[in-house]
């Protein structure tokens, strides 16, 4: 009740503090021009200003910062992308879509695109499947469940840069532990830093290692919301554990699975650190075997000092991510055999 002023002054927009008045009319008038009814004290007037403007004040830091470091750069990237723009010399001539054309004509762009999609698929598909299995294992009457949940989260604590250095050593071409291990069972050493597919597998395994446990916890949370009596009646009908998992659990948690897939898409298409630090040169291989789009953007902008072309890549990457997210959304609606909800 106190949110309503006792008497609504004539000529004022009726109580902007009242619940849910979506876009009724223009901004509330500042207090100076508002006719003030004689009954209100200075204190009451202050208090009404307080009630009316505080919400805007509270949300303003986010919007101010977003304007400066989010919105402005977004638009400005487009502006840079249609100019000649050097890292050192700054803005040059307006060149229209030349930067975009140059990107499309650069075979390294297409290679980076291929690498990104390949690494993304190698990291997201096994990751989601493994995370589902781990979550299913955790969604039981485990002893020491906090211990298990914390344990699977340990890789998440290791920064991508450190992960990459560790895996770069494990996947060493000459002395790597993995080549030694597969040598024991008679497989020839793999040239992880030369062969395209092998390098993609190595990089994808870093992403998988760091994120599987994290995603398993998200899926676990959804699984715990599945009503237990569904499992009991399925068990009465003779459905085994695996069958229950496939026919009850996965359809029931579909929204969360889609959420995990979408976030791993957005993350997977931006892979940078792993590709940059996989060898000590940092450009994605001698023939750009594992250069991702983001790494390509960085090489253009900060190695070749062509910020104009790099901006064009940034915009293309954005479109690419939006496109992928949409395709993903459509595809993942089919998960769980077209169940409802």
């Amino acid at each position: 009740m106190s949110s309503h002023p006792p008497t609504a002054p004539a000529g004022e927009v009726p109580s902007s503090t009242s619940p849910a008045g979506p876009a009724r009319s223009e901004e509330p008038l500042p207090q100076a021009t508002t006719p003030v009814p004689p009954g209100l004290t200075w204190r009451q007037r202050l208090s009404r200003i307080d009630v009316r403007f505080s919400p805007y004040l509270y949300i303003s830091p986010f919007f101010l910062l977003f304007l400066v470091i989010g919105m402005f750069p977004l638009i400005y990237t487009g502006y840079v992308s249609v100019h000649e723009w050097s890292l050192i010399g700054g803005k040059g001539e307006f060149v229209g879509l030349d930067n975009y054309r140059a990107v499309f004509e650069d075979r390294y762009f297409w290679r980076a695109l291929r690498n990104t999609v390949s690494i993304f698929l190698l990291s997201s598909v096994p990751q989601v499947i493994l995370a589902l299995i781990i979550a299913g294992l955790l969604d039981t009457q485990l002893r020491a469940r906090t211990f298990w949940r914390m344990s699977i989260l340990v890789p998440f604590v290791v920064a991508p840069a450190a992960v990459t250095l560790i895996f770069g050593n494990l996947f060493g071409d000459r002395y790597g532990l993995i080549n030694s291990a597969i040598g024991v069972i008679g497989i020839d050493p793999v040239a992880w830093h030369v062969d395209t597919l092998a390098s993609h597998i190595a990089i994808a395994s870093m992403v998988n290692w760091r994120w599987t446990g994290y995603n398993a916890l998200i899926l676990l949370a959804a699984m715990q919301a599945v009503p237990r009596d569904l499992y009991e009646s399925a068990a009465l009908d003779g459905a085994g554990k695996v069958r229950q998992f496939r026919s009850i659990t996965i359809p029931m948690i579909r929204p969360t699975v889609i959420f995990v897939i979408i976030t791993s898409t957005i993350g997977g298409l931006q892979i940078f650190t792993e590709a940059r630090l996989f060898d000590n040169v940092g450009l994605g291989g001698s023939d750009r075997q594992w250069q991702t789009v983001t790494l390509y953007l960085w090489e253009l902008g900060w190695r070749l000092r062509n910020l104009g072309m790099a901006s064009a890549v940034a915009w293309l990457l954005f479109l690419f991510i939006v496109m992928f997210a949409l395709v993903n959304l459509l595809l993942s609606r089919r998960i769980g055999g077209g169940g409802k909800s």
Partner: protein
Amino acid sequence: MNRRPGFLVYGLLTAFVLGSAAPLYWSLIVGSHDKSVVTQRVPPFIPGGEFFSNAQRVFDTVEFWKALGNSLLVSTVCATSVVFFCTLAGYAFAKLRFRGSNALMVFVVATLAIPTQLGVIPLFIQMAKLGWTGTVWAIIVPTLVTAFGVFFMRQYLVDAIPDELIEAARVDGCTMFGIFRNVAIPAARPAAAILWLFTFMTVWTDFFWPMIVMPSTNPTVQIALQQLQSGYYVDYALVLCAAVLSTIPLLILFVLTGRQLVAGIMQGAVKG
């Protein structure tokens, strides 16, 4: 309950946990031997005694103390600022009624989908103009308040504060900020702790943006790691010792607060 797990479940989970720990353990093994360890035919399976001399070399080779200080500084400042501003905005979106709040909230969520790389070039140009490149400001300022944080706090506070409590405080003549301080902040504490942790870890582990704006003379921990690796010859005893060193602060944080972190991830999933 017919869902009591058997040996198979425990066995599979144990295998997964060992797999999760193995790369870290391996880096401890390599980082605690001298550099010939990587070329041995049969690698050692227990840590050696060279960890501290390797660590000493790390500190001699790059500005690792400065890097640790910088990372600690930017992560703490960003986490604290994000918690304050996001609680403020999240509370406004969750509990205060104002014109346009729904549309503005949708806008916040939409910004979550924008990748950092898209704006990175103008942001760099801006930072260079302001003369902030090479200083911690370039890292701190863009992360003072995040869309994720606003969203996260809003989701939590919607249910955490009863509307009656706010009404009652208002009747008692509390100012808006007084209500925020005395009602919202105490109620927000559990979520604020989680958000602080998340932001701290995100800033600590970030590599892309610091690599663009920070020079080798004023690195963060992740940049120092890169410097150790970027020579012509990679000394893995040195590099992996540094990888372990760079992870220790977060491991300590994880041991102390892992429970909350797990709860936070699972909570965010249910509500998000």
